[in-house]
């Protein structure tokens, strides 16, 4: 069943809210409120429209941000990244990160740095032709 346009707009509003406020502790109530749906109705519609639950979407957003911070910030500690992207506990951050990315945060950072280092040695044409920009 496809989601009608008005519902989609309301869902997108809630998703935008996650995009903006992912670094805060967000409850389903807070998120569903943005779409003006009851929480269970919202949960079902959201999953139908975006193929994931709001919680999964939120986690993905946080993990993406964590990856970015780990890649870019030289001296940032994993603990700081964890809290900065909105997780409340280092343990759940680490295990979720590992599950999503395939490596622990610290290993991801090492690998990302090695990749950056390696990329600098490769002529740009190869990076482009072999689609290595985003690895």
């Amino acid at each position, binding site marked *: 069943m496809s989601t009608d346009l008005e519902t989609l707009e309301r869902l997108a509003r809630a998703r935008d809210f996650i995009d903006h406020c992912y670094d805060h502790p967000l409850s389903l109530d807070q998120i569903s409120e943005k779409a003006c749906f009851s929480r269970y109705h919202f949960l079902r519609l959201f999953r139908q429209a975006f193929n994931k639950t709001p919680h999964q979407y939120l986690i993905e957003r946080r993990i993406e941000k964590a990856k970015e911070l780990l890649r870019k910030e030289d001296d940032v500690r994993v603990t700081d990244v964890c809290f900065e992207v909105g997780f409340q506990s280092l343990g759940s951050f680490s295990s979720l990160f590992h599950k999503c990315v395939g490596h622990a945060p610290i290993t991801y950072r090492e690998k990302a740095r*090695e*990749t950056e*280092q*390696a*990329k600098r*040695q*490769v*002529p740009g044409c*190869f*990076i482009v*032709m*072999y*689609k*290595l920009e985003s*690895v």
Partner: protein
Amino acid sequence: MIRKMSHATVFVTNQNEALEFYRDKLGFRVHTDAMVGPDFRWLTMCTNDQPDFEIILLEPKPGMMMDQETSNAIRTLLGKGVLGAGVFNTDDCRGTYEEMKAKGVQFVSEPAERPYGVEAVFRDNSGNWFSLTQPTGKS
């Protein structure tokens, strides 16, 4: 104005084996060997006299620039031995020929006099053929 060539690609069937061959049998050294992401290995080697000319040893693999069909096509051409990848220079073609032969390098033709010098032709372990030339005037 183009000044010079800095990189050239040689497709190889296996980068590990190519590295060993080019290092141990041809006497090249590794210029750069780095993983860019999980699947792309940037491996370049150079001769002693040309440290700034990198020979890129690239493995045809599906998933990056190529699809499976393209990768297979290149591997087939390598297997058929039809890819000629260039000319290397030496001061002593016959001597180098003996050294390389002793190391097990396969030669397509033995050293012979040419208008431009002495030349032999060998293959690398992937099937690429190269000329080994001692230009006239070099003892």
